[in-house]
């Protein structure tokens, strides 16, 4: 479904991504792990289109999206969520989700007809809110949500675009144990409909959810395989030496 070949990116003298080859299959949850500074978010940004890659190719559903602008990638089914929550803070939860629904359904060059005349947007947004566990919080301003709720909305926005593949960048970031369980349950709920490339530090979540795991170190993928194999891999252990596998 998603195929990266030889993707590279440098910032001045720093090589952030070094000839990465990676693929995500239909219906799988593929986890991307690695020590801090490995370049995981940079890689996600290149796949999503926030950043352009210097070299290499990104194929999505058979089409070459390497140079495609971000909004076109989203339209073809490739969405992402952000490690640092990036939502529409002054909008309500419902409006946040309705926006994403609006983006994928019809043109936004409509200047006269009020959005209120389109109940379908709000209805779908409500359904989404329930799916991500924010039922009952629809009218709340996004800025007033608790951290865990904001992370849920963060993921919700990506899911609202009905992607075929979603890139989740550390969805559990900053979450306590209860909130983490809720997020893991959310990913479990959606995995039947959408493939996931999951960047995470939380090893508990990774080994519960992942079908396959890739390990990124200093911009290079040093190993890809089944979770058990990765756990046992000597090279991976070495990369993580000194890092406690924090849950």
């Amino acid at each position, binding site marked *: 479904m998603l195929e990266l070949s030889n993707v590279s990116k440098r910032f001045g003298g720093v090589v952030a991504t070094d000839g990465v080859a990676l693929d995500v299959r239909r219906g799988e949850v593929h986890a991307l792990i690695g020590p801090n500074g490995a370049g995981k978010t940079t890689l996600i940004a290149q796949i999503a289109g926030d950043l352009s890659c210097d070299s290499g190719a990104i194929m999505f559903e058979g089409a070459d999206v390497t140079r495609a602008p971000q909004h076109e990638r989203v339209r073809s089914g490739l969405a992402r969520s952000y490690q640092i929550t990036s939502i529409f803070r*002054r*909008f309500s939860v419902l409006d946040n989700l309705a926006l994403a629904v*609006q983006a994928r359904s019809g043109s*936004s060059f409509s200047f006269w007809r009020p*959005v209120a005349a*389109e109940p379908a947007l709000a209805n779908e947004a409500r359904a989404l809110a329930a799916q991500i566990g924010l039922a009952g919080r629809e009218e709340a301003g996004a800025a007033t949500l608790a951290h865990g709720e904001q992370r849920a909305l963060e993921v919700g926005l990506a899911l609202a675009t009905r992607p075929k593949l979603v890139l989740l960048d550390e969805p559990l970031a900053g979450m306590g144990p209860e909130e983490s369980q809720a997020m893991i349950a959310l990913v479990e709920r959606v995995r039947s409909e959408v493939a996931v490339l999951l960047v995470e530090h939380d090893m508990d979540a990774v080994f519960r959810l992942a079908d396959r795991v890739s390990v990124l170190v200093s911009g290079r993928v040093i190993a890809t395989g089944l979770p058990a194999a990765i756990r046992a891999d000597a090279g991976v252990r070495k990369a993580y030496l000194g890092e406690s596998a924090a849950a």
Partner: protein
Amino acid sequence: MRRYATAAALVLALAFPLAAPESYYLSFASRIFVYALAATSLNLALGYGGMISFGHAAFVGTGAYVSSIFLAEGVASAWIGWPAAVAAAALAALVIGAVSLRTRGVYFIMITLAFAQMMYFLVNSMKAYGGDEGLTLPARASAGLGVDLGSDAVFYYVALAALACAVYGLHRLAHSRFGRVIQAIRENEARAEAIGFPVYRLKLACFVIAGAAGGLAGVLLASHGKYVNPNVLHWTQSGTLMVMVILGGVGRLWGGAVGATAYLGLEDLVANHRVEWIASVFPNYQQHASLGVGAVLLAIVLFAPQGIAGAFARGRRA
């Protein structure tokens, strides 16, 4: 509540010429309507769209000049000159926007400013149309259909109609799909792109609509005074429009109209109605009114950034 206030204001506005038929007040009110339209058009780009364009005067000026040039060249019909001028302003906005919107932040401000200055200098050098002395027109355009634009009362209603249409249009737009997206883009542009909106195109559309409306304001401005000069394109004019918008309330429906009324009303009050106790301390105060304007503007920015029309709290970075 808002509905009643709007209706009441409209009734008052419609009745005004009957109560105060003197030319001076009619003319002054018309001028307020025209600037209200200009400020409202800027409010769309700036307040709703979050685009800090310091070149909006270019579009107002384009409308003013193109319509005046039509008249100067003998094309008296408003039905030809006015739409042409608005189209010219929209085209200018399309070109300037297409280039400028590739940039962000201060670069965007600078480029819009640069383009406006380019137009200012261009117009300044057009000796055929007055150059830096400006262009005086013998009469306003003719509208036919028994409507005499030369009459102050008629012009008043035309200006009022234009403003009313603009504000209503902004109201519809703000609640439409487009309005939602534009405000979302203002809030978090990166995420808007990341959920699949073609942000550049949407911003450009907003910019062009604002430019076209500004052009209409320019047409009316030139027509009102039967005079146009390059200063209408100067970046300080953009600044004045911005002052009106922030005075009235950035991103609020009535922000432009309220701001223009407050600004021009205050300006007229200071210039033409001498307040003795101020004069006793400061004899020439009326000639230095812009000091007061500056002080009020500074106070608003520092202490009441919401402006008159309501609450609008901008966050940390534009």
